[in-house]
């Protein structure tokens, strides 16, 4: 009788550990899913520059596919691909993983904001868009040339800048 009880208890414990593991896995999966694909359409708080390469806000942009894609949109709209397009070479090629002024988030951010001379992006581009542009630029080396080309093709088709086709 005693042995039976013990064995029943043992099974119970094992089941609960199994259940806990399953729940933990599900939660982990859910978290992994939600942060990467979260799509927040509403307005967000105004941004300041990243403090350093370990600013906790960086992950919100760099690890979120929608923020990166939004950066790609601004990349086209601000005319960045005129110099940094697919055929860019040397230091202007952003997809080669070589960063002249450092590849950390704050360093790339500073390169975009402060190192474009008279374009004065730090003043002309709102901070949040600079965050998104930075995330996009740092994302570029992660993709195959075909993927970058496909993205460029989509951006070329957008009626912005020289290809504007709407009312004048």
């Amino acid at each position: 009788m005693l042995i039976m009880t013990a064995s029943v208890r043992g099974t119970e414990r094992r089941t609960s550990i199994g259940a806990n593991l399953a729940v933990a896995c599900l939660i982990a999966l859910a978290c992994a899913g939600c942060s990467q694909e979260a799509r927040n359409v509403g307005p967000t708080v105004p941004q300041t520059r990243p403090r350093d390469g370990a600013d906790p806000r960086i992950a919100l942009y760099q690890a979120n596919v929608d923020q990166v894609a939004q950066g790609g949109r601004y990349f086209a709209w601000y005319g960045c691909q005129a110099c940094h397009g697919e055929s860019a070479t040397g230091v202007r090629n952003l997809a080669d993983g070589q960063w002249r002024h450092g590849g950390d988030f704050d360093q790339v951010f500073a390169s975009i904001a402060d190192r474009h001379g008279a374009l004065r992006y730090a003043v002309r581009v709102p901070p949040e868009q600079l965050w998104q542009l930075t995330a996009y630029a740092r994302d570029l080396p992660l993709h195959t040339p075909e993927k970058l080309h496909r993205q460029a093709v989509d951006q070329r088709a957008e009626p912005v800048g020289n290809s504007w086709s709407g009312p004048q």
Partner: protein
Amino acid sequence: MKAPADRRLQLEQTWSDKPGLWGFLTTVDHKRIAARYIVTAMLLMFLAGMLALDMRWQLSVPENTRMTPQLFNESFSLHGSTMLFLVSVPLMEALGLWLVPLMLGQRNMAFPRLSAFSFWLYLGGVMTLWVAHALDITPDLGWFEYPPLSGPSYSPGHRADIWAQMITFTEVAALAASVNIAVTILKMRPPGMTLARMPVFLWAQLISSLMTILSMPAIMLVTSMLIADRMVSTHFFAPAGGGDVLLFQHLFWFFGHPEVYIIFIPATGFVSQIVETFSRRPLFGHSVVVLAIMAIGALAFGLWVHHMFAVGLPRLGNNFYTAASMAIALPAGLQIFCWIATMWSGRPWLATPMLWVIGFIATFVIGGLSGIMTASAALDLQLTDTYFIVAHFHYVLIGGAIFPLFGAFCYWYPKATGRLMSERWGRWAFVLIVGGFNLGFFPMHFLGLMGMPRRVYTYPPGMGWDLLNQVATAGSAISVLGGLVFVGNALWSFWRGEHAGSDPWRGSTLEWAGLSPTPPYNLAYTPAVTSLTPMWNGGDPLRAYDGIALERREVLITSVADAAPLYRQRSASASVWPFLSAIAVTAMFLGSIFTPWAVAIGSVPIAAALIGWFWPQRERTMTGLLRKRR
């Protein structure tokens, strides 16, 4: 058709599944598989209905904050995708899987294992969409996910891939079911059931299966092109790269329009059977109804462009598709007049299945009339993307397909479970659902005419839309309440309902010849058919043939036109291979969301599983790999 007890025992032994989980995973019994399909789809209908109620809550007052725009986008995308791909089409096929062999007096489908494979893959599609939803990777671009919005640049992440791959799952499942149904109907009719003596339900299932076979490849092609665009950077839908975004819309709607008729045509089959049985006379104008179904099936492939009037096609082209769209009102109208004539000249018995048919006719006619309005290209330019369209397609889809489905559910429930559903609660459910539905969706016509656009998550006050939106929300809440009564009635009756006996409605077709609930072997003998209504037959008893094996699984194959007996065919036994194959295919489909290599690597386990499935058996081989497996 009384059979001696030893015959029934032998048949039971031959056709039963193994008990327990193993039997559950290996069964090829079309009734069990169809029941799974139906229960899963009903559960999803409940979930999608909850989404609808949530959206109605959000829209009940202006500038409501119950939902964010993103949640609203996800909700209507999930609602639409679930209802179209995971509820309506699978439910119609499930009714076919369950009822076609019964109505043919056969023991199983033509390809028993393919039925099992179809269900497991469908379940894979369900899990793909809803587990992804639980992980907050919900598709959020509507039920048709047009590029360029769904392309790689504008929909990063995997939301669109989840949607596209869910389509692949459900379409493979649908193709498997349709091929199975079409072959079963064409080659396994009982002796004497010539094409001219086929009940309308079988015609409807045959034609919608053929339509599925012809239209589904278009959507599988187009979603595969979308996945290729997103994953391996092809240019199908990139205009600057030589692609065309309209190509997606054309291919999508080349499937999408036949799809609504793939949903509607089986419903006309249910309606015809119910009207016949409950009017106590053979269907008026059987050939007219069948020819009308054929005409709808043919015309359905020629009017997909009416979903695209607003994209700027040439006007002459629009005119053509306007004419084609209006032409379909003719066969649809003929059918409705035939049903009304049957009721008019018969002795209608207003049991719940018949009530659902009457609800269907009233609602569907309203939906058909707004359909004629939206078919006109000129008017459609005003109405498109407004709530008028929402009202129209809910009237035709819920009124035209789901109401007959509920009627079919009540009608065939005693055959499936051996018990009758409560008539009183059935009438309550009918009044609540049909009343709530009309209260909920009729105001949307006006909202649409007043300019309220579709797919908006909220609206400002002062537009004059407040009252009608509140009425619509109240209506959908009543409707959902009715749905709960319906499901509650079905569950309660399952354990506590009145015993039905084999033929509670004194039905006209062969499924009523056997016991209720149907035993694993269906009918004990092969029936001989001499008329359109073999169970009535002018009072003559149903004659039957013998000669099909009892101690092994065997079915009778007959000729396509005359249903003359041709030969006896071995029917595949229970097997775990369809389940394993479906798992292998699921792994490949899911993997190909993330890497193209999954297609190449994933086909190896699929090939292995299929080899297991189709491993040849030779009766006379005693040794080696080809010996008959025990």
